[in-house]
Structures are given as C-alpha cells and as structure tokens.
C-alpha cells in the first residue's frame, strides 16, 4: 500500500529515475497490479468478486497462508529457506487435535502447538547456524521428520469435538450485515493473521533485529564484520518461521476442525511463491512483509477464480502456482541483471 502511494506522490518528478532507484520495489508493485487486475478480470468474467462476502472469505480462507508467508519472508530475506512449514503444520495440528480430544485444556493446547512449531524452528536454526548445514537440507530433513511424526500419530483425519474451545477462533463476527449473505465477516483467525503481519512489519522494518535480518541477506560476512548479532539472528528467523507455522496450524485447525497427517502438502511452495510474488528476493537482502501478504492474496484469489471458472482441473493448481513462482523468479533475475548494469 505504501508503495502505491509513494508512486503517486513522486510521479511528478522523473518516474524513470525513481524506478531506477527503487528497482527492488518493482516486483511488489507488479504483484499489486496483478492482484487488482485479477479482481477486475474476475468481476467482469464471473461477477460477485468485488463484494464483501467474497473479500472476507478470501481473508478467512488464506489467513494461515498469510501467516506462514510472513514467517517465510524473514527466512528468505536472510538468504535461507524453510521447506518444513507445511509438514510442521501437519504435525502440530494433528498433535493439537489429539491432545484436545484427550481432554487437555484447549488454550494450553494452542500454546503447545505454537511451541512445538517453534521447537522445529529451533532445530533447523541450530543445524543451519551452528553446524553449517545448507538451509534447504536442514529444513527438508525437518519436513520429513515432522511429516513422519504426524503419520506416526495418526494416518486418518482427526476430528475435533464440536465443543472444543479452539473452534472459537473461527467464530464468524458480522461487522457489516449486508443484503442476503453478502456480509463483511471477520474471525479471530483473521485478527491473529493481522496482528502477526503488524508485529512482523514492526520487527522487520523498525527494529535492530530487522535491520540485521536484511544485513545478513545482503552479505553475511559484512554483517559479521559490522558486529551485528548474526548468529543469534540467523537462529531467530527459523524460530520465528517455526512459531508462525504453529500459529498457522492453530488458525487452520480452528477453521476446519479436522487435522490430518497429509495436511499442508505443498504449502511450502505456496508460502515461497507468496513471498516471491510479493517482491522478496530469493537470494536474500530485499523483501517486504506487506508484499508477502499481497502475494498470499494473489494465490488465494487465483484459487477462487479457478473454482469459479470450473474449466481448469483442480489438479492443475500446483502447476499454475509453480509456473507463477517461476515467472516471478525469472522477473527478479531480470531486474537484478538490469540493476548490475
């Protein structure tokens, strides 16, 4: 959003110069343009897109994706990657549902789920930071570990009891009661996602830790020489990503009321795609939390449009997501190459 307003205010001066200066903003702007274009296309082609219920459903159905994409943003800005988020969500949600059904206090279980996610993050962080394991290998191992542990717990869908307190997080509050079902709805899950986004924005863009995250991505060696706490910060980004995977598991489970060991297959790709679409460079050093939010919404809207269209088989969505990710990564390389000239 800030990016868009800045464009307008400065367009009077030479737009070309500005673009040259803030070239890294280009993909984020592109994502915003694509999102708006998709909304317009959807409205024209299928209708009922620009209305309160569709938009609130978009937020409700993608709050978990927004949360993991924010975590992924931290990791990718340091030049790392976290492939374990989908599997961590599967493990924490299955464990959470089973504990709740075993009679544990619901809110304690929520805390435990977040903590378990954080624990996976700690292990990845230690492997990456202290043992120099490549990030994708360490988090890939965590992905298999979490997925394996989830299947050890259960291989059938675990259903929450109808009175489980965690389900309260999916209560739908009508903010504006529109005609028929066209209401502006918000759930505590969406509020959690918004809080996560705000806290992450503050942390990343306004604190010393955030600066260090960018510095590591720019050049780890320089960051180290500048005396920044590289070790601790590099660890923290994986912990943050793990914790947020736990939060996403809470939000997702509360919405569905079911957890299964195959939940979240391919979500790491969605999170990476959302982050990359939002303008975060896969090589690290550049990225915005809000960009990742836009990226998540682009992916979410894509699913809505595919369902509305009906002509595209649902199996093809991963191919489309992969294709979009590929296009944006190529766009980044192009921009980087241009910048170097």
């Amino acid at each position, binding site marked *: 959003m800030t990016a868009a307003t800045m464009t307008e205010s400065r367009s009077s001066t030479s737009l070309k110069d500005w673009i040259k200066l803030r070239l890294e903003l280009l993909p984020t702007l592109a994502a915003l343009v694509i999102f708006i274009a998709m909304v317009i296309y959807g409205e024209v082609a299928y209708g009922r897109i620009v209305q309160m219920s569709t938009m609130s459903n978009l937020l409700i159905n993608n709050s978990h994706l927004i949360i993991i994409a924010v975590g992924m943003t931290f990791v990718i800005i340091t030049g790392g990657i976290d492939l374990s988020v989908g599997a961590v969500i599967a493990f924490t949600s299955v464990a959470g549902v089973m504990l709740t059904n075993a009679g544990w206090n619901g809110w304690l279980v929520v805390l435990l789920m977040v903590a378990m996610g954080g624990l996976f993050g700690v292990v990845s962080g230690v*492997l990456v930071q202290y043992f*120099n394991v490549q990030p*994708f290998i360490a988090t890939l191992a965590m*992905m298999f570990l979490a997925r394996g542990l989830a*299947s050890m717990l259960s291989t059938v869908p675990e259903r929450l009891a109808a009175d489980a307190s965690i389900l309260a997080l999916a209560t739908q509050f009508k903010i504006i009661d529109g005609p028929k079902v066209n209401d502006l709805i918000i759930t505590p899950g969406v509020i959690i996602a918004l809080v996560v986004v705000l806290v992450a924005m503050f942390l990343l863009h306004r604190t010393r830790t955030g600066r260090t995250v960018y510095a590591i991505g720019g050049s780890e060696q320089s960051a180290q020489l500048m005396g920044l706490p590289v070790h601790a910060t590099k660890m923290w980004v994986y912990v943050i990503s793990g914790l947020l995977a736990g939060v996403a598991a809470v939000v997702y489970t509360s919405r569905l009321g079911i957890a299964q060991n195959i939940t979240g297959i391919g979500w790491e790709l969605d999170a990476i795609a959302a982050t990359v679409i939002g303008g975060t460079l896969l*090589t690290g050093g550049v990225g915005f939390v809000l960009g990742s939010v836009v990226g998540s919404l682009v992916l979410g809207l894509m699913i809505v449009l595919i369902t509305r269209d009906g002509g595209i088989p649902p199996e093809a969505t991963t191919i489309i997501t992969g294709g979009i990710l*590929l296009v944006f990564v*190529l766009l980044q390389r192009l921009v980087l190459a241009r910048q170097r000239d």
Partner: protein
Amino acid sequence: MSDNGTGPAGFLKEVVRRQYFWGVVAIVLLLLVNLTKDPSYLSIGWNDANGALVGNLVDILRAAAPIMMISIGMCLVIATSGIDLSVGSVMVIAGAVSMQFLAAAPNTFAGAMAALGLALLVSAVVGLVNGILVSVVGLQPFISTLIMMLAGRGIAKVITGGQNTSAVNDSFRWIANGYLFGLPVVFLLALAIVVLVGLLVRRSALGLMIEAIGMDPQAARLAGVNRRGLLLAVYSISGLLSGVAGVFATASVMTVDISRTGYQLEMDAILAVVIGGTSLAGGKFNLTGATVGALLIATLDKTVVFLGVSSSATPAFKAVVIVVLCLIQSDRVRQLLRSRRTTGSRPSRKEAVAA
C-alpha cells in the same frame, strides 16, 4: 578397488576408511536382527515353476532397484553441488505416462517398448527443464527442482485425469516381476545401469569435470569445463534415471498411484547418497557408495515391515539419520572430534558443546 594397500592389513584399513563400509556393516546388522527373529530369514529357495530364486534377500534386491536408480542420479547432481528434489515426482510422471499409454495400447512387446520409450523421454525432458533452469537461467537448484517436485505430481494428475490408472501388458510387467538367471530382472537392469553410468563417468573425464563444477565453478570455468552443458546433461540423466525408477515402481503392480508412487523418495535418494560418503557440499561423488546406500535403505524398509514396526515411523527415522549424518559431515563436529583426538583445545570447542 583399493590396490594401494600393503598386504591384507593395509587392505582392511583401506576398506574401513571408506564410508560405505559402514553402510555394508549396517546392512549386515539389519540382516542379523532379522535373523534373530526368524532363523530362516536368509534362506533362499528355488522356485521351479518360474525358474527363480525366492527369499527375503531377493525381495530386498528387487525393492532396491528403483532406489538405486534415483540415488545414482542424485549422486551426480549433488556432486555438482546441486540437488534434485524432483526425483519422486518424475517417478510418478513416468508411471502415469506409461500406464496411461498402456491402458490404450495392445498387450504386445512393441506396446511395452513404446510405453517405456515415451516414459523415459518425458522424464528426460523434465530433467532437462530442471537443467535449463539451473544452468541457463541460473536459478538455485533446490528452487527449480522444488517447483518440479510439487508441480510434477500435478502434471501426473493431469495426465491420468486424477485417476490411479492401471493397465495390462505382460512384457512391461516382466521388467519388474520377471526373472533372468534366477535373479529379478529389475535388479539386474538396475545393476547394469549403475555399472554403465559408473564406466561412463569414471572411465572418461566426465566424472572429474562434474566434480570440478561442484568444487569451484570459477576454477572449472577457467580450466575450460563446459559448465552449462554438463549441468544440462547431469540433470537430464537424473530425470532419465528417475523415469526408469518410476517404470520399475509402477510395472510391478501395473498401477500408478498418483499420490503414493515415488512419494518422499527424494529423501531416500539423498539419504542413500549421504550414507555412501558423498558430501552434500558437492565436489566429489561415490557411485558405489550410493548403491550401497540404496541397498541399505531397501533392507531397512523390509526390516521395518518384517519386525512389525508401523511403517509410518520410517520417514521420521530416516530424517533423524539424515540429520545425524549431516552433523557428522559438518566442520564443527569434525573439528571437535579432531581436537579431542589431538587434545588441542580450539576456541570453537566450547561453543560447539553449548550448541
């Protein structure tokens, strides 16, 4: 293999130093565990009906064949300091292509060959796309192959229309279930391919050049190594071998299971490679080691089923093994071990213990 040792003692020392020696030890240990549960575990019988050896060992060899294929492909890719996360998905694509083709084709030898050729062609093309993304476009290997890993299963679903297609073709089925000289054809084929790839890379400069890219791309370029061409070749080979593995895996049941065929097998391949002594950092590779690793994984899978442990526990266990092997390979642990041995304390030692 090790002819520079002096006498039997030197030979033994040389063998123990090789990392895949421990893989062999692990296989023997697993077999011993099985032997204690069932003393006749290792017995091999002869089935007169189809002229084949029967027994648990033969089953293990059969199960090892697809893992051997993806492991040696992965081994070459890792040597270039890349990774191929798409092996499992290429398997399912190859399976989907061959089954979808055979479902409509006549039950003849020619039909089987056409299906095989088509499946291998498609897998090699997928590998080539990976190679183009890595070498020409310059993407990080794990991102391009991750996209393929997740999109690949989608492609397979689109090919079969979301169904688990089955087909009937005796020649195709023979590839996975037939016997030659009493041994499973599938294992003999896999072994032949391993030997072929081994000869190709070790009897020519190819292997050396692959290692050169993995060690130092800059130096390799200055030495005149064609990085782009080699990477294209290596990723295509990995795709092709994964296609072979996919054919092996689907031909035994003549059904492609869209969500299960090749699922999480990329981890098996990485594990086999790491067990075989190939460092994930790239720059060197050991095909014999990768083959031993593949045999170990097949033995492990069979052992878990045999002992009645829930097979859902194996992925978690394998992940733990990968983490441990990565730790052993890391400099910090090596330094720690070395400093223990020489009793010289290094500054990083305290930190490592704390970590």
